[in-house]
């Protein structure tokens, strides 16, 4: 089952194991420059608000109501990253935007695939910032209005039907977890393991599109497909509403727009680099690599979709490691 607590989705499977819990949140962040460079990890600037979509059902179109799930506001051209938290019980988590897998670029299916791997393993994978375009490189998730052609969904299918984010989480099979735990209890490294405006207009759906390039590895599944209990998954559709309409839908102010990468860097504030130890990274998706980034498509269309896409100079980078340190990359204003 999934509960919504303090702007995070809490997945838990008491029917599998008391410890089978993980949570997923969506972090506000800087939009990295969409240029030819490969950037370090930008900070988290606090969580996007999440609300039960059903609470605002009378204000929303039928298509949105049918999906269920939660609703979240984003400014046009705003970026996000996904934060995974699990205390030690492993999960396989699939993430899609517009029902296109963010790891492989394939159309959404509920089940997991291994070749190529279309999911991340939590807690080994602490974050996901975008689409896996090359081994060790992602293109940042950037919100764009659905229907303008920028989203991954529109670039690959030619249709603007879904938008938003789709997630399914599968816990590890109980017996595999018990065996793994027994093994770890005999291993000295165990203690150091990574812990693990709707009033007069239809709400405008937002989709996610590929932004700037970022250094981030998507880790290969060290357990194998057979480790995951695919009879017990929980799914959630995250509808993204344009932040201008968020207040009309929910009565709440949306978060302010984040600073630009240039402003942030000029204040001497940190970027991050993550070293995941010996974990292997999966290859990037040729399908996703072949897509135009938002800036590239803007050039083709003669539009300027990303205001203030300037390159900051000399970012201050803090290294984070999987073992022996906490993995906080948030910087609250």
């Amino acid at each position, binding site marked *: 089952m999934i509960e919504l607590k303090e702007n995070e989705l809490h997945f838990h499977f008491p029917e599998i194991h008391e410890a089978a819990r993980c949570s997923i949140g969506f972090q506000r962040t800087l939009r990295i420059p969409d240029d030819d460079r490969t950037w370090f990890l930008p900070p988290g600037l606090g969580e996007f608000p999440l609300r039960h979509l059903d609470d605002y059902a009378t204000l929303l179109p039928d298509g949105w109501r*049918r*999906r269920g799930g939660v609703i979240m506001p984003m400014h046009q051209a705003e970026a996000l990253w996904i934060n995974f938290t699990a205390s030690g019980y492993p999960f396989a988590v699939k993430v899609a935007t517009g029902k296109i897998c963010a790891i492989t670029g394939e159309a959404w299916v509920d089940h997991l695939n291994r070749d190529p791997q279309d999911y991340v393993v939590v807690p080994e994978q602490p974050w996901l910032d975008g689409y896996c375009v090359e081994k060790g490189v992602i293109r940042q998730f950037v919100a764009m209005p659905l229907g303008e052609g920028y989203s991954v969904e529109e670039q690959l299918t030619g249709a603007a039907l879904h938008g938003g984010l789709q997630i399914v989480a599968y816990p590890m099979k109980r017996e595999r977890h018990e065996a793994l735990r027994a093994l770890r209890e005999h291993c000295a490294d165990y203690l150091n393991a990574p812990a693990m405006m709707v009033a007069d207009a239809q709400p405008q759906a937002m989709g996610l599109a590929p932004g700037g390039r970022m250094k981030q590895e998507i880790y290969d599944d060290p357990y194998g497909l057979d480790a995951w209990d695919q009879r017990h998954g929980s799914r959630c559709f995250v509808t993204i509403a344009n932040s201008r309409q968020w207040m009309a839908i929910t009565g709440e102010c949306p978060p302010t727009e984040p600073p630009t990468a240039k402003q942030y860097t000029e204040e001497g504030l940190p970027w991050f680099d993550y070293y995941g130890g010996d974990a292997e990274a999966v290859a990037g998706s040729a399908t996703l690599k072949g897509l135009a980034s938002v800036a590239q498509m803007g050039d083709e269309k003669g539009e300027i979709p990303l205001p203030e896409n300037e390159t900051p100079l000399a970012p201050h980078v803090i290294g984070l490691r999987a073992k022996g340190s906490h993995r906080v990359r948030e910087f609250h204003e």
Partner: protein
Amino acid sequence: MNHFGDVVRERRERLRRQDRRYSLRQVAQRIGLEPAYLSKIERSEAAPPSEAATVRLAGELGEDPDVLLALAGKVSRDLQDIIRKRPRLFAELIRQLKDAPDHAVLRVVREVRDGDW
């Protein structure tokens, strides 16, 4: 029934055996209490601290804040606000569920609905 002070002391001492930063003095400093006051609380010679201090103490000791507040004979302000907004509804709900087993209570926890997509 567990006593607030006993639970705090037992938990803190257990943590201190692994990490010296959990001495009474250091924990008191981190949560903004005088060490002598925390010592009295642990020995049940003083009443539990304020809600805010109890929540900070729970965070420090890795305990659930609602559990520690309940041991202190308190209910968190946000829960009070929820009940005050719809007192009849929530009073009835809590009375109906007071003897229900945990799994039955969990069944009324609101799930994020998965729809057709």
